[in-house]
């Protein structure tokens, strides 16, 4: 096997693992806050229906959290094995950020999770709610640290060279690097949307079986309402995130919009098949001058094309398509959330609307994964923008070991994912039993 294949396999393995992992925190970060809402509702009303609802969703949370923990442990091993060059070059920055995540977030959430799941009869209502808040705070803190590191890899600052490696000059600058506030907010809202559609979708699934279930009707309304509020915020924040990317990573935006050549009055490509060979778009459907307007708020503004960065620009087609998938799913979520919220103001949801929400149960996963592909592939060929190329971070794990473990991971992840979805839909159909 040559170096190119090994690079591909190492990246595919890490990519598979990180993609599998992100599915679960994306749900659990926001679901933890949902649970607090359900728990507080019960504490205030003492209504057994809310207690049953809480119990149902705590089961779903526990399973999601467990999936996140075990797939996350894998990542702590693969940083060093698949990307030793990464740690040698930027370990003095990445290491402490990961360390703070373990110290401040992982222990907090994992320890209080035990009290939250099993301690309801053993501690007072107040201590139980406090434990739930600590779990939620832990999940959010964890996202804070990992996104600080990920953002730094996109828009590094605050570091100085020390021999061949980097060290931090100013930690505040490292953590609050230019893309961090946008990426963090974008990810938090993505988690909110993903969890909202999961709550709404599984509740709709239950209502299709038991149309009179009052608990499921309440959680459906909660999920739809929160999604209807978050979805437009996400459009706004996503736009700011894109403008920030244009400023700091223009090559990524050029790939997103499939702009091959630097020009003025750039059209917005709605659909095309980007052709790396001919460096143009086949079968393009374009709106004249719209890309210039969207990105620079000026119809005739000049945008840098991929030619300005050649040969160091990301592969165009995957970034281009993943972006359109993300935006498409996002718009569908916005439309359905608004329509559902409007319809359910005075009416109970009919079967077709329930089917629509049930069908969108895992739509957040698609949007999150495609957004992640846009940002990560869009950074290529760099692992850390301008500092470390992906190919230079590759490990020296024997090819046979990589191949065998890749097959093993694929099998285990497949089994886990199928089991997760089956159990969730099963729990949802059984509903909350007081």
């Amino acid at each position, binding site marked *: 096997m040559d170096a190119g294949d090994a690079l591909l396999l190492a990246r595919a393995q890490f990519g598979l693992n990180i993609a599998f992992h992100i599915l679960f925190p994306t749900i659990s970060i926001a679901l933890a806050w949902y649970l607090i809402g359900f728990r507080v509702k019960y504490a205030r009303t003492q209504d057994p229906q809310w207690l049953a609802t809480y119990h149902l969703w705590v089961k779903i949370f526990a*399973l999601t959290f467990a999936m996140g923990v*075990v797939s996350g442990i894998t990542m*702590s091993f693969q*940083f060093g094995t698949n990307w030793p060059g990464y740690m040698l070059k930027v370990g003095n920055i990445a290491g402490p950020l990961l360390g*703070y995540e373990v110290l401040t977030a992982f222990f907090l959430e994992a320890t209080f999770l035990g009290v939250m799941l099993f301690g309801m009869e053993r501690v007072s209502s107040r201590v139980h709610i406090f434990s739930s808040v600590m779990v939620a705070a832990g999940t959010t803190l964890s996202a804070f640290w990992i996104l600080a590191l990920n953002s730094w890899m996109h828009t590094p600052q605050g570091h100085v060279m020390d021999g061949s490696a980097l060290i931090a000059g100013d930690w505040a600058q490292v953590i609050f690097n230019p893309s961090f506030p946008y990426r963090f907010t974008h990810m938090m809202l993505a988690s909110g949307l993903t969890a909202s559609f999961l709550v709404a979708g599984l509740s709709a699934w239950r209502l299709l079986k038991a149309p009179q279930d009052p608990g499921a009707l309440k959680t459906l309304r909660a999920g739809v309402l929160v999604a209807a509020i978050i979805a437009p915020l996400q459009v706004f924040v996503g736009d700011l995130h894109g403008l920030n990317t244009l400023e700091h990573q223009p090559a990524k935006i050029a790939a997103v919009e499939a702009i091959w050549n630097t020009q003025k009055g750039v059209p917005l490509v709605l659909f095309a098949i980007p052709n790396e060979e001919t460096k143009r778009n086949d079968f393009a459907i374009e709106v004249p001058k719209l890309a210039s307007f969207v990105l620079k708020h000026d119809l005739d503004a000049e945008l840098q094309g991929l030619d300005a960065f050649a040969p160091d620009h990301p592969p165009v087609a995957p970034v281009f398509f993943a972006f359109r998938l993300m935006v498409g799913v996002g718009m569908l979520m916005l439309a359905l959330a608004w329509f559902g919220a409007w319809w359910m103001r005075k009416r109970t949801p009919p079967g077709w609307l329930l089917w629509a929400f049930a069908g969108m149960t895992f739509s957040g996963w698609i949007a999150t994964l495609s957004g992640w592909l846009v940002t990560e592939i869009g950074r290529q060929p760099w692992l850390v923008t301008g500092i470390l190329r992906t190919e230079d971070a590759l490990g020296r794990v024997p090819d046979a070991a990589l191949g065998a473990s890749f097959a093993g991971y694929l099998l285990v992840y497949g089994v886990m994912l199928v089991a997760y979805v089956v159990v969730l839909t099963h729990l949802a159909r059984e509903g909350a039993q007081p």
Partner: protein
Amino acid sequence: MTLDLPLIFALLMGAAILAYVVLDGYDLGVGMLMPAATDHEQDVMVASIGPFWDANETWLVLGVGILLIAFPAAHGYILGALYLPVAAMLAGLMLRGVAFELRVKALGWHAELWNWLFWFGSFLASFAQGYMLGRYLTAFQPGWGYALFSLLVGAALCGGYVLLGATWLILRTEGELQKKARAWTKWGLLWVALGVALVSLATPMVSELVRNKWFDFPRTLGLMVLPLATLAAWLWVWVSLGKSDWKPFAGAVAIYVLAFAGLAYSVFPYVVLGWLTIWDAAAHPSALKVTLFGVVLVLPFLIGYTVFAYRVFRGKAKAGLYGH
């Protein structure tokens, strides 16, 4: 005075790994004992570890995290050399972690399958950890002899975790299950005796470096405290079986602490035996300082809420606290 940062981090890493081995050791041990119990007993066993296992596994992330942060060169080297057993361990931990949740949520034969996977995952993870220890102590040298040694260490560590799990069950359960746990403890003790003896005799044989550290009179006489204290702890577990609920577990933990101290003495100051010392492999002082600041800041809270969680769940475990 300047701080010897690599030394501090070596101590922290040792503490984290020891905490992991003891804490996840008891819940992995309970997992491996599942097939020997009835359905109802299995539910009690899982209830006894349910509130803790997430946090227990976090110690593994901390141990590996410190290796990654403080000794990045060693992290890549060690985990690269152990790639397949690490993958096997991770697969075991994953299956087991998910089975924890699914064995009560799945239906019919699915529930049986997850119950089996819970046992298998616990066993696979434990065995892989022991195998990795064997490979690590023999400095990853190739050859059938070394592989056989590592397989034996793997089997011995499984027995060691069974000891921790069984004594944990004596502490946390009552009645028939507690009686069974006492019988399991005896089996665990035999395996631990075999394992500790094996590692203690074989490690000096395969590594000249380790041999010179232990067989160097008159220092050897002083070092004899470790095996003698281990033997005393072993006897303490045996004698206190049936007389006390907590002494067997405390004795089992003592065996681990002493064995770990012996291993640490054998290896120190190397992080990769005979090749990389902790000072060779250390990250830049600026990274170590900022991490140490976080450790000092967070550790009191971490200990505080861990103690709180164990206090909340003190006493005997009951089946069905959760999942019904």
